[in-house]
């Protein structure tokens, strides 16, 4: 163990004397690195911070010619938004759509993902590619037939209509990510089950599914998040049923200048998202990077 640390430490390996400039550079390097990393972190955080401050500003502070970093925070914007009540409808719609989408996408996607991950059969990788390619389809290519169909059949502006569209978007991601989780399980799991006389379905249902539960939870959260954030299909396929992003967009259209109330609405809409990020950070990283990191 001691030997390991000796050889992996560059300073000990390099026995040539260091010039003062090199020494200074080495001493400063960690601080330069930290500076860049935190500068990028501030850039990532700044819009969220700015949105939060706007939601706590009086109109005069929000519309000040010189943006005010120090101001008297108020809750009036939040109270106004909550009292107006539209936001509860948006929350309700989004919740219904996101939960239903997640349930359907998981129920359909998990069995497919399992077989793709665990069984070798002809066309397996072509099938996997096809599933993923549906995720790459430009949304307008799907949107136009959906729009025509919905206008003609009365699915327009209904919950089932929007859920069907969201399942179509999310299913490929659910299959793809669950496939990754199933691939991580040791193949001895099923082999042992088959020895004990389990059928294929029993091996899946009773052995693999329980073990894959953390993965299923992660994918469920992600599917929920994608549905919650989805804008284009929700915008086009609904009128009265407004999901959270569409509701916010309609605010932007009507109330161009009331930044305070708009910001308060946006912050409220972000609350579930931020809660997910803080609680399920690790699972989200894997999901948001499409399984490229494990």
């Amino acid at each position, binding site marked *: 163990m001691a030997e390991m640390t000796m050889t992996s430490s560059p300073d000990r390996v390099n026995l040539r004397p260091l010039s003062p400039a090199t020494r200074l550079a080495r001493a400063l390097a960690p601080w330069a690195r930290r500076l860049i*990393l*935190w500068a990028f972190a501030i850039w990532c955080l700044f819009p969220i911070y700015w949105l939060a401050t706007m939601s706590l500003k009086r109109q005069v502070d929000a519309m000040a010619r010189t*943006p005010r970093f120090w101001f008297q925070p108020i809750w009036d914007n939040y109270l106004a938004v909550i009292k107006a009540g539209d936001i509860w409808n948006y929350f309700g719609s989004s919740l219904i759509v996101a939960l239903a989408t997640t349930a359907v996408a998981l129920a*359909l996607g998990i069995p497919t993902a399992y077989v793709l*991950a665990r069984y070798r059969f002809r066309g397996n990788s072509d099938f996997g590619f096809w599933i993923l390619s549906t995720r790459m389809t430009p949304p307008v290519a*799907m949107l136009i037939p959906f729009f025509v169909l919905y206008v003609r059949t009365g699915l327009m502006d209904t919950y089932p209509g929007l859920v069907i569209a969201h399942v*179509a978007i999310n299913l490929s991601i659910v299959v793809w990510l669950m496939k990754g989780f199933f*691939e991580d399980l040791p193949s001895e799991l*099923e082999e042992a089950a088959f020895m004990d006389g389990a*059928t294929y379905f029993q091996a899946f249902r009773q052995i693999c599914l329980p073990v894959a539960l953390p993965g299923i939870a992660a994918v469920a959260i992600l599917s929920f998040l994608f549905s919650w954030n989805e804008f284009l299909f929700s915008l086009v396929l609904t009128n009265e049923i407004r999901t959270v992003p569409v509701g916010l967009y309609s605010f932007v259209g009507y109330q161009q200048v009331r930044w305070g109330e708009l910001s308060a609405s946006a912050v409220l809409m972000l609350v579930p998202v931020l809660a997910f990020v803080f609680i399920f950070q690790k699972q989200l990283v894997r999901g948001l990077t499409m399984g490229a990191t494990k």
Partner: protein
Amino acid sequence: MRSSAARSRNRFILLMLAPATVLLAGLTLIPFVVSVGFSLTNYSLTAPNDIAFIGLGNYLALFSSSEFWNAAWITVLFTVVAVGLQLVLGVGIAALLHHETRAVSALRLIYLLPMAITPVAAVFTFRMMFNPTLGVFNYILKTMGLPAQDWLGSPTMALVSLILVDSWQWTPFILLIAAGGLAALDEEPLEAARMDGAGPMAIFFQHTLPMLFPYLAVAIVFRSIDAFKTFDIIFVLTNGGPGVATRTLNLLAYKQGIEFLSMGYAAAIAIVMLIVTIVASQLFLRRVDLFKPKAAL
């Protein structure tokens, strides 16, 4: 002769695949076929019963219209510049993060936020910050002694602003994939190069980057495809404007289809986009070994 064991195995595979396959086929293949069909007609929802087959008429009209080529150019420009910027920034910061020891988990959590939060909410915030007179960006520029910008009002700046917002949202995507790749990297060749006296820059470009390539290839493909079809950011921030300066193919198809109700013409644009996406992703993703099943039951 097939044994009954093989038959029951195949039946199991089929049953497990069927539900999602039927639904995905129904929800993506059928719309695709319908779109192709629409694109060969003059179908418009303003006169839904007056539908006629016009062959490749929409495509010919498309390829001879300047608005199509303008939109195609802007789409390519936006995609290439945005993904290029995100790649350089993302990989650079991932490399720094890889050597960082303090507060790494806090940094990772912060980097995760832009791509997790509701895009419409984020874009709305940028709209406030881009405001030429009241926005915080121009205030910051002015305090630094730099000239104020008409962020969304001038054609060039509008595209720059969109790339800025897209990069704010998606640089973390490439960063996290690159960081995952770095963590999984075999350190031995790097150590050997270091022993041979190679400098950190030489090691990074000659050893680390090539080893990281499979991860970056995936990141680039996913990101390019997504950038190619970006909607939320452009729609909420500029809606294709000023004029047509930021009108991408996606926005053009939306305008033609959902606003003008010319389904045939809009479908033709969507099909062109789809073909470009499929060809590009086939070319790149096939080379990356993503599709081999790992276990063999």
